[in-house]
């Protein structure tokens, strides 16, 4: 997917985010949680966004969906979905787009289901809201079809959320997101609360469905080791900014940004010799008063005077890799 990183295939890009700035108004000031983020995603692509809590990855997802909370706003930038600008689109238009074309699986999807409605009612509701001419029966049939797609038996249609396990609830949420055959599926930590085996089966399911139905995925998580395995392209966010961007496998082989390296060095491995791993010293900055220059400089083992003097640009390192660092580590580790 090098083409779309370099931006030469603009017509096929499912989503293009350009210089997006968004954040939250608080009593202490404006917290810019997403600061000048640009990315693009091709049709059928799988983009992973990695970052720790508070790095702005969820805000980015909500900004794309235009679902930001009341105290939050998009300051500037563009979100082009199939070439159509979403920033500033009237809410009535956005409502038509949401779920029908861009769907989302939320962070605590397990608690996002309505406890007093059956699975079938909730699934069909999504279809009926967007397809006023659809009959209830048709919506239910569609619900059955989607449930079967995520390996849930049709007799679960009458079940209530409390009768399902965590993994099943999460699969119901995925079925619901796919009800209207969206072109883009945004998943915000969809497997974080699940056990590894269930996580694995859900990820395999999403991958199968993506190949079958051809939608694009944005997968957001703090678990870089998981993302490296499942994404085509990976964006690493730190303190509201993308610090490194590139093909997942290559990013794992040779991370250029010290933060990406630190993150990679934060996951013990299942195989190979055990050596002492570093992790990253310190903690993420306060976004109310981000440090001058590079935001990672206070925690960076390589930081020099220029790092806190001047903010590094996200520059093209070749081969579709972008990195925002004054001292990128280009040699292989």
């Amino acid at each position, binding site marked *: 997917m090098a083409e779309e990183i370099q931006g030469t295939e603009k017509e096929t890009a499912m989503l293009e985010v350009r210089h997006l700035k968004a954040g939250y108004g608080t009593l202490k000031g404006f917290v810019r949680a997403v600061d000048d983020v640009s990315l693009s995603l091709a049709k059928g692509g799988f983009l992973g966004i990695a970052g720790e809590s508070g790095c702005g990855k969820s805000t980015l997802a909500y900004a794309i969906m235009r679902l930001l909370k009341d105290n939050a706003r998009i300051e500037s930038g563009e979100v082009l979905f199939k070439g159509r600008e979403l920033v500033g689109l009237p809410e009535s238009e956005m409502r038509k787009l949401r779920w029908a074309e861009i769907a989302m699986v939320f962070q605590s999807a397990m608690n996002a289901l309505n406890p007093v409605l059956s699975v079938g009612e909730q699934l069909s509701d999504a279809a009926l809201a967007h397809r006023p001419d659809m009959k209830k029966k048709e919506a239910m049939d569609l619900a059955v079809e989607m449930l079967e797609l995520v390996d849930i038996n049709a007799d679960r249609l009458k079940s209530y959320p409390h009768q399902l396990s965590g993994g099943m609830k999460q699969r119901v949420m995925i079925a619901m997101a796919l009800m209207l055959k969206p072109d883009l599926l945004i998943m915000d930590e969809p497997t974080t609360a699940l*056990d590894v085996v269930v996580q694995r089966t859900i990820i395999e399911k999403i991958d199968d469905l993506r190949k079958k139905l051809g939608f694009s995925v944005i997968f957001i998580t*703090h678990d870089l080791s998981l993302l*490296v395995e499942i994404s085509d392209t990976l964006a690493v966010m730190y303190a509201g900014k993308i610090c490194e961007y590139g093909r997942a496998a290559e990013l794992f082989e040779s991370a250029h940004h010290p933060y990406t390296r630190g993150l990679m060095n*934060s*996951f013990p491995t*299942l*195989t*190979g*010799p055990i050596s002492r791993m570093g*992790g990253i010293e310190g903690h993420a900055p306060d976004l109310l008063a981000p440090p001058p220059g590079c935001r990672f400089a206070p925690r960076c083992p390589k930081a020099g005077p220029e790092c806190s003097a001047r903010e590094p640009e996200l520059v093209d390192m070749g081969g579709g890799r972008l990195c925002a660092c004054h001292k990128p580590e280009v040699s292989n580790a």
Partner: protein
Amino acid sequence: MPENNSSDILKENSGAASRAAAQGAAGLQPSAAPALELKSVYKHFPLRGLSAHGRAVHAMDDVSLTLESGGSLALVGESGSGKTTTASVIARIYEQDSGHIIVDGEEARPFRSRAEALQYKKKVQLIFQDPFGSLNPTHTIRQILERPLLIHGIVKNRGELDAKLNEILELVGLCPPGEYLDRYPHELSGGQRQRVNIARTFALEPEIVLADEPTSMLDVSIRMGIMNMMLDLKAKRGVSYLYITHDLAGARYMCSRIAVMYAGMLMEVGPTDEVISEALHPYVKLLKAASPAPELGLSRGRVAAKGEIPSLVDPPSGCRFHPRCPYAKASCSESMPELREVGPGHLVRCFEV
């Protein structure tokens, strides 16, 4: 119980970071009594209410473990597998239904006096998972840390108390201590709070530390710092760890031995490297295949797991894993396999191994 064959267990020399770091303290004599032994411990929680009909949650069934003095044992399992119950029973938060818990060669019995309880709790300390919920938000760090010191009579006077507080905060890397003592938990980051938790644990100089997923609620980049600190503390203080986690790779980093729990029962116990590299039990194989491991290449193939963890109220007959096991035979649903030794210090609960 086969695994108290301690001379075999002590041949643990596969190079985990813990051993490299803990060489001094862990250089124990093979004759030393294990720090902790569980012999066939059962713990069921009765259901309440009209529809309970005498049923119970089988949180621990026939759990037998040995933790060598100065050793480290990872208890790995998915949520609801009974690992936290195991820690709670060892910490005497719950009394087991049956079976024996032996600490330092002495059987742990229900406490008959406060003195007995204090004596036990000084030896066995617990680090909680949630650094946000386990510190009293209305107390300063000083109040939180001095309480166990005063209750256990570790310090005699104000001067000793201050020295001790400084010492334990420095031990967990909160320097200078003066900067932290008068702050409240909400003024600290998650990682710092977990350090306070660990400082409180080590304040009593325990022999056994039960760490219940100490890093799972922390940000990724600071987990390693906490894990490394725990390895260093183990080397410095010579404690024994029971490290509870759901992360196989983390278990491998922290511990020389591993016990994998599923639906309230131990499925495989052995040297960590051996169990992870050559998993014998089908559940452990599944867990390993499902764990993220980018270094294994990006397309390891499908895991294709079926089913989910069974209800512990009505656990499956026979082997608890048989409904999900790709190798299950008819006999697997009829009787429960024993946890039997298949190699030095390596035990597996499976008919097919």
